[in-house]
């Protein structure tokens, strides 16, 4: 199991629901400062819900999230805004504001949260875009960029306020293998350059192998395995093995495991 020294995010017994449906059923884990923490799971496993709770887009039904030792779940909206300035998030579809240029997107949080001069913000914006390999693209509109470039711009925007923690939602989704590998390399570079804590939600095993320090595997709203990649691969949990081996669920009819699941007899 992962070493718990110097935690930056502590999640304790998180329960979340959409209406009456329980999506997270007692999720607990700890993210160490400076590591790349991957939340792995299939569709509907609750991994996106964990992320939405971590960045404060949802409030859990019960359980706590401690960020830098402060209880994020019970904070007032004002305190949350302060804490959010130390977090950045890269969205699955990049979620750049389509009506303004890439540069304005990156500059937006800085303009709104600081009193820096316009020229300073311009330079900062150029540096951030340079960092993600998009130098010179500040005047383009998001619609003029390719999928991979949009994702890079989204990462530049997440980095705009020099956060301590950066969250990535499905960073390689919808990208070709080469571009996806480029994003993986960028995630590693961000961590190495700024000793940034990164929390990555994904279902792509290829990128997990490239970036993960710690892997937390979710299924059905519960943590079923947590540890280094080796520990996860060594896990004998049937879902973990099925996920890693990319085996489909049992087909209806004829399969004995399906019959067992119906009768409840093992």
């Amino acid at each position, binding site marked *: 199991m992962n070493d718990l020294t110097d935690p930056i995010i502590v999640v304790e017994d998180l329960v979340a629901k959409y209406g009456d449906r329980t999506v997270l059923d007692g999720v607990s884990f700890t993210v160490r400062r400076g590591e790349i923490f991957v939340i792995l799971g299939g569709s509907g496993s609750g991994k996106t819900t964990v992320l939405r709770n971590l960045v404060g887009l949802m409030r859990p039904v019960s359980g706590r999230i401690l960020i830098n030792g402060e209880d994020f779940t019970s904070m007032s909206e004002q305190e949350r805004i302060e804490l959010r300035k130390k977090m950045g998030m890269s969205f699955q*579809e990049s*979620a*750049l*504001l389509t009506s303004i240029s890439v540069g304005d997107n990156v500059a937006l949080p800085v303009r709104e949260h600081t009193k820096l001069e316009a020229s300073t913000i311009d330079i900062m914006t150029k540096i951030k875009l340079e960092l993600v390999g998009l130098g010179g693209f500040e005047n383009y509109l998001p619609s003029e960029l390719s999928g991979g470039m949009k994702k890079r711009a989204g990462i530049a925007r997440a980095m705009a306020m020099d956060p301590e923690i950066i969250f990535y939602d499905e960073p390689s989704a919808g990208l070709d293998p080469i571009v996806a590998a480029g994003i993986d390399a960028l995630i590693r570079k961000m961590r190495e350059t700024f000793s940034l804590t990164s929390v990555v939600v994904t279902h792509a095993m290829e990128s997990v192998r490239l970036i993960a320090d710690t892997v937390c595997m979710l299924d059905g709203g519960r943590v079923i395995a947590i540890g280094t990649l080796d520990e996860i691969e060594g896990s004998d949990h049937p879902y973990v093995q099925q996920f890693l081996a990319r085996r489909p669920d049992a087909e209806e009819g004829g399969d004995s495991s399906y019959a067992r699941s119906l009768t409840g007899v093992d």
Partner: protein
Amino acid sequence: MIALAGRIGRWTLNALAAGARVSVLMVDTVFWLVVAPIRGKGLRTRSAVESFVEFGVRSLPIVGMICFLVGVILALQSSYTLEKWGANRFIATLVAVSALREMAPLMTAILITGRCGSAITAEIATMKVSEEVDALEVMGLNPVKYLVAPKFLAMALAVPCVTVIAMFIMVLGGFLASVVVVGVPASIYIDETIRALVEKDLVIGLTKSAFFGIAICWVGVYRGFQVEGGAEGVGRQTTSSVVTSIFLIIIIDLIFTVLFYFL
């Protein structure tokens, strides 16, 4: 029977929940429009000006054309009855009073609903679907401050401004139709128009139109934030935004008409 009671109960709960959400949105908007700027948190003035140009200035051609034609129609329809009494000069009175008190504010509001209310809903719904609203929130930027407050200010100002111009154009349409088609002497028409109008007509028309503007914006924003699903949801919300707005506009119109009838 039980099913009916259940349905009424559920309908009431839904209506109350919607009412609560609208109230929260209203309080938030007023906060970001009035309280926050006083506390030095700023208002996105540039964005408000851009919205004003979009809602107001760019609506002028279509509103102007429609209102001109409605003025012509009002004059010719009035003449149909008034001619029998040899009272064609009173076309001026009818056109002026109905344009200022009723037709110009109403036509403007309905046209701006179709043009801009729908656009507000589509924009916000699309931003929500593509996680842009979430992105704002994660960046610590309040979506109401960033998206709603400027549009609200712009709409509440733009609708009365366009309405004033619409009133003038509608009266002009009536004037041209009466003079050219019906044959009322121009000087008589102008005299009658001036005699017919009082300050109160303008006040009533503009008060109504300010409320129409507020309704268009709030419905547009509310429907936008309500979106669920993808492109299909955006379409559904946009349609329902236009229908709800027009319905609300008629209700507001009715309330004001009744109010001023007794005042």
